[in-house]
Every structure is written in structure tokens, then in C-alpha cells.
């Protein structure tokens, strides 16, 4: 396999990383909202949150992507396939992240919240200074896992016509008739990117050790 083909794959990997990063970030925002809904005392809200999580964790991502990709135009939203892919991935990862965050928020010790109240922190300060940092530290390993998961499953957006790493490898394999080399190279690139993310996650976890005995 020539060097030129490999560079094309690396370029396409940029899109894979971009799609994954945007989806993870959007998913974190949606997931925070969904986990708040799940933990809320309002019965309807918590049921809605749990249904959202159950559906997006229960149906295969491929089916979700095909559904969203075809559903958006009928709703009058003619968005590029890249955007449809990001919406699909974000909703899916939001469900997983909501579940992780729920665990994180639930694990904040009650005594800390009581202490925060005692020293006169407002609910807003309690959230940003006590609950959110602790929950984030608790869920960071899960978040890194989720990022790696999304990097891997982002290969499915090739089906809705986004030219990311997998689709590029497919196109090049078809035109050069060298599927073995191209898919192996694509797999290698995914592996290296995932490894880098895992390394970054470990470093981040180490720097997040504040407050631990």
C-alpha cells in the first residue's frame, strides 16, 4: 500500500475524530440534562429520562442512525449527512453518559452536601463547587471509555454516507482492489487513536487526584 493512500486514510481519520469529539461533547450536555431528569422527583420527568436511556441503549446504533438520517428530511430539516450522523451519535452516547453521570451524582456523599449548606453555599455554588467536580471525577474513567466506544462505533456513520476513516478505506479498497491492506491500515489507525485517548484519559485521571486522601 502506498504512502499516499495511507495519508488519505489519516486525513479521513480527522473526520472520525471530529465527529466523535463533537458527539461526545454534545452527548455530555444532553446526558447531564437527562441524568438530572432521571434523578428528579417529578415522576413524569424521571420516566421520560429513563425511557430515553432505555431506548437509546436498547436499539442498535446502526438502526438509530438509519432512522435519524431518514427522519430529519421528513421533518423539514435538510441537513448534511455529517450533521445527521453527529445527532445520531450524540443521542446514543447521551444515553450512556446519562447513566454514568447518574451514578456519579448519586455517589456524592450526603455529608458533603450538608456541610456545603452549613457553610452557606447557594444551591448554584453547591452544584458547581461540590457536586459537579466530584461527579466528574467519579465518572471520568467511564467518560474516557465512552469516548473510545464512540470512536469505534463512529465507523457506522459510513453507512449514511459520511466519508470518515471507514468509508474512505471502503472507497479506496474498492478502487485499488486491496481491501486487506486498506482495512488493516484503517484498523491500525483506529487502534492508535484509541490508545492515545486511553493514555490521555489516564493522565487526566492522575491530574484529577485532588481531594483524595
Amino acid at each position, binding site marked *: 500500500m502506498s504512502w499516499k493512500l495511507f495519508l488519505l486514510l489519516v486525513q479521513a481519520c480527522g473526520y472520525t475524530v471530529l465527529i466523535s469529539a463533537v458527539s461526545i461533547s454534545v452527548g455530555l450536555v444532553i446526558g447531564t440534562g437527562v441524568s438530572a431528569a432521571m434523578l428528579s422527583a417529578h415522576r413524569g420527568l424521571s420516566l421520560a429520562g429513563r425511557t430515553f436511556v432505555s431506548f437509546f441503549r436498547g436499539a442498535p446504533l446502526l438502526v438509530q442512525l438509519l*432512522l435519524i438520517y431518514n427522519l430529519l428530511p421528513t421533518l423539514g430539516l435538510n441537513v448534511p449527512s455529517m450533521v445527521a450522523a453527529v445527532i445520531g451519535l450524540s443521542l446514543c452516547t447521551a444515553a450512556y453518559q446519562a447513566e454514568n453521570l447518574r451514578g456519579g451524582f448519586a455517589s456524592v456523599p450526603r455529608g458533603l452536601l450538608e456541610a456545603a449548606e452549613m457553610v452557606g453555599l447557594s444551591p448554584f455554588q453547591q452544584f458547581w463547587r461540590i457536586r459537579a467536580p466530584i461527579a466528574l471525577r467519579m465518572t471520568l474513567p467511564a467518560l474516557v471509555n465512552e469516548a473510545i466506544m464512540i470512536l469505534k462505533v463512529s465507523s457506522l456513520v459510513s453507512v449514511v454516507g459520511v466519508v470518515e476513516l471507514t468509508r474512505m*478505506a471502503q472507497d479506496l479498497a474498492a478502487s485499488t482492489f486491496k481491501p486487506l491492506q486498506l482495512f488493516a491500515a484503517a*484498523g491500525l489507525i483506529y*487502534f492508535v487513536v484509541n490508545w492515545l485517548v486511553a493514555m490521555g484519559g489516564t493522565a487526566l485521571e492522575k491530574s484529577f487526584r485532588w481531594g483524595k486522601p
Partner: protein
Amino acid sequence: MSLDFNLIWSLLPEILRSAGVTLLVWCCGVVGAVVLGFLVALGRRYGPRALGYALQAYVELIRGTPFLIQLFLLYYGGPFIGLSLDPVPAGLLGLAVYGAAYFSEIFRAGFEAVPPGHVEAAECLGLNRSQTVRRILIPEMTMLVLPPAVNMAIILLKETAVLSIITVPELTFQISAIGSQRYAFIEAMFLLACFYWGLVSLCGRLGSVAESRLSKFRFAHS
């Protein structure tokens, strides 16, 4: 959303056949993955060091790359190294090889959770390796690995949808074909998503029932 129930009725045999393919590929894939994964875990525990490294590399590579890429490599790359498979066997093999890497990690964790004292005691009593595995390790770890193993089986059920991309005639493949032929793609996909959702929820429920029913077999330490 318009649903033509007569249409669904007329297509029912086709839909059921493809659902059968999904269930068949899933069940065989899970059994293959469990057996292969167990062998990998055993190889990593008892095998020579070189085998251990090779198996570790296999596990890391499978877990670090997308399932779709592995399938493409097997299905489109396979013929170039003399491995020409039809879609269904290729999908089955792909699913088993993919799942085995994850199952082997589950079993490895299970092996490690068995107290070393129990294994040493078995050795002291003169049990050989296969007896130790069959009579001590497997019974002690089964309850520990059940929840993650059920979880993995559910993940594999969802992964069977990916097999549609390499034209395995399973449910997602057939339903999306029917949906686009009849101009009812969105409805078809929505029903499909709900079908998987229901099946996944059912399996999760069965898993927790099994866990609570079998909890009496749990060892005191776990």
C-alpha cells in the same frame, strides 16, 4: 405514520425468516464467543508466555478497533488470503472472534476473583489442573461473571445489526430492504428499533431474574 397491516401480514413470513437468522447468528455467535473466550482466558492463565503475549495482542487489537472494520477485513480481505466465506458464516465467525476478546476479559477477571487460597488448597489436595479448573474455578466464578456475561451477550445482539452491512440477510438487512421498496423506510426502521429495544429489555430482565434466582449458589466471599 401510516401502517398497512395487510402489507405487514403478507410480508410476515419473510420478516420471521430474517428474525430467525438474527436469532440464529446471535445464539451461535454468543456460544462461539463464550467458548473461544474461555479458551483464550485459559491460554492466558496457563499457557506459555509467548502464547500469553499473542493472546493479549489479539484481545487488545479486537477491543481497540471497530467491529465493522474487523468484518470488512474478514469478508472483503479474507478471499485474498484464501478465506472465502459466505455472508452468514463470515458474520458468525466475525461475531464470535469479536465477542471472544471481550468474554475472555470477563473470564480473566472471574479467574482472578477466585481467592488464590482456594486454588492452592486444591493443589494441596492433589487435584490436577483440569480438575482445579472444572471443580474450583468454574463453579466459583460462574456467579461472578454472570452479570457482565449477560451484558456482553446483549451487546452482541445489538451488534448483529451491523452484520447487515456485509449483506447477512438478518432482520436489519431485510427490514431496510422492505422499507425502501415500499416507501415506508422510517416506519420500518422505527418498528425495527422497537423490536430490538424490546428484545434487549427482555434479555436484561431475564438476566437479573437469573441472577437473583442463582444468587444462592454464590460463594460467601463474593
